[in-house]
């Protein structure tokens, strides 16, 4: 199988879906000639023309709202928000509109819209180009939130998002774009939304996480394996609504659970994961649930000292895993 980068997986998923279905189109800021500021839509303008790869005015509420309208008509828009941090002006359209269209119309209308946005830190992006913003939407029934960690998952899940008849927020880790490479089959495939994935089987401790932290955990697990600790790693992939069964199963498997997010700790995705475990398999636990996350400060500073202090990294993950294993 060929190895491609995380961002190439994004581009090829979009390209294939656009070729497959003429109702699929892309809209966003700088997605056309420029091919996106990260170049995720690179080449699509040339291949599909400016009518299907639309450079919009600088206005996120319109990007989402126009996408919603087109989706209700029957198109399958893929809206790009340039940085996840800039999704905020579109929150009303996403939460009040996209998420509620099917429900409020008693299944008469639907909104097959995909919103993509790069998120995450560790790239000197400072307060407004580094945030994890999924928690804002992770209490909004009607939405699905996908945050893949590998090129394989990116491609399969992005295709499913585009084909889904419901709105999907698809958050891509911007540091993973060029850093993470992986095997992706040439043949067409999709992966189911809403399903977590065991990325490593293990017996001693369970790590549940998503995004870049999956890679940190995998790396730490290899180091710890040499010391005789065997980690089980569950990649949530879809962070809302969560795959409760997979979470409970993974927690029960080892009885020691470490939850990791690079988001601020309080009120994050892993809070709900902890709640699910505490509700469903408390008596299977041999240690308190442990959470590793960013500190509760507004966002990641620019200066390298403070950015590093904020960020979850492989060392912090390894230390937390070891501490839990030794509990």
């Amino acid at each position, binding site marked *: 199988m060929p190895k491609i980068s995380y961002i190439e997986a994004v581009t090829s998923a979009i390209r294939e879906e656009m070729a497959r279905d003429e109702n699929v189109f892309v809209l966003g800021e700088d997605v056309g000639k420029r091919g996106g500021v990260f170049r995720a839509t690179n080449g699509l303008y040339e291949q599909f023309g400016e009518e299907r790869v639309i450079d919009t005015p600088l206005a996120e509420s*319109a990007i*989402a709202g126009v996408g*919603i*309208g087109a*989706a209700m008509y*029957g198109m399958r828009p893929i809206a790009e928000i340039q940085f996840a941090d800039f999704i905020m002006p579109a929150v009303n359209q996403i939460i009040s509109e996209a998420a509620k269209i099917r429900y*409020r119309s008693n299944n*008469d*209308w639907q909104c097959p819209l995909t919103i993509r946005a790069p998120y995450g830190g560790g790239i000197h992006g400072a307060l407004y180009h580094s945030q994890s913003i999924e928690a804002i939407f992770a209490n909004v029934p*009607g939405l699905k939130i996908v945050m893949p960690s590998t090129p394989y998952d990116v491609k399969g899940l992005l295709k499913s998002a585009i084909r889904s008849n419901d709105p999907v927020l698809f958050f891509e880790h911007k540091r993973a774009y060029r850093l993470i490479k992986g095997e992706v089959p040439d043949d067409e495939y999709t992966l189911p939304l809403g399903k977590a994935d065991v990325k490593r089987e293990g017996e001693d401790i369970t790590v549940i996480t998503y995004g870049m932290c999956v890679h940190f955990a995998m790396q730490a697990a290899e180091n710890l394996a040499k010391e005789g600790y065997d980690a089980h790693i569950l990649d949530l992939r879809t962070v809302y609504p969560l795959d409760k069964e997979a979470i409970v199963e993974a927690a029960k498997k080892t009885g020691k659970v470490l939850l990791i997010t690079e988001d601020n700790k309080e009120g994050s995705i892993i809070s709900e994961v902890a709640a699910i475990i505490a509700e469903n398999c408390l008596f299977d636990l041999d240690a308190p649930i442990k959470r590793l996350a960013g500190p509760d400060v507004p966002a990641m500073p620019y200066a390298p000292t403070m950015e590093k202090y904020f960020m979850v990294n492989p060392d912090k993950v390894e230390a937390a895993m070891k501490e839990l294993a030794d509990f």
Partner: protein
Amino acid sequence: MSKLRHHQLGLTDDDVIAMYETMLLARMIDERMWLLNRAGKIPFVISCQGQEAAQVGAAMALDKDKDYVLPYYRDMGVVLHFGMTAKDLLLSGFAKAEDPNSGGRQMPGHFGQKKNRIVTGSSPVTTQVPHAVGFGLAAKMKRQDFIAFTTFGEGSSNQGDFHEGINFASVHDLPVIFMCENNKYAISVPLEKQLNCQHVSDRAAAYGIHGETVDGNDPLAVYEAVSKARKRAVNGEGPSLIETVSYRLTPHSSDDDDSTYRAKEEVEEAKKLDPIHTFEEYLHGAGLLSHEGKEEIRSKLRNIIDDATDYAEKAPYAEPETALKYVYGEE
């Protein structure tokens, strides 16, 4: 050629009688809703009263077999013309399972009915404006000759979505009609505390599009403006911003008490221009509507509304646990 205004606009005598009937039906359903509310039978009403001419005049200028409408909560006149029935509206008022808008999930006034191309709406104002632009974009991409028509109040024209949506449509010359139903108040806040330009339609200049203000009490004036806007839209000449000026004859909603912020005299003065009456006079003057004809129409509509009320009142609510349905599509 006839000197009658509606003939000059290409409307037949039957057309204007139909126009009148739809306006009157909207008014009479609305009045029924208030009665039901005051009798404690339905929890909420939000009215079209005073805006029927703008709504029906505009709707009749559209192609009701092709165009998509994205109405706001007062637009009973629009949805009636587009095929919603008195029964549908009463079912919505009573929040019954059979309500085609939402199965009783939303308050009355939150219109939506896919088979009639009435696009589902919500409560937060102005969100429908970018949606209409999305329909316009789809028309352009799919080379279809429908247009999207959306409405909102003058207060709502101050929301960011108004600006972002119209700007998008203007850049891409999309077939969309934006119609502001200026009724002088946003709940208690009068026009002059909402905006500082003379006409809401002055805002068209910000987008380089056609802007126009018309008398919202005159359905023929509105018909004319919207007809022309539709022609421009399908000809690829882009969107238009039309403002209809009228007056909100009722309190904002059944929860409001308008005596705390406006004088009775002001309302009485506005009632003199009530479009139901002024249009009746026009039809009378044109020899199309006699006193008896009027009474006949009223009693016909009253029967329709009585039946609809009966039906809706007796219809069942949705089962409690159906509240769990349709969060996501069935895979």
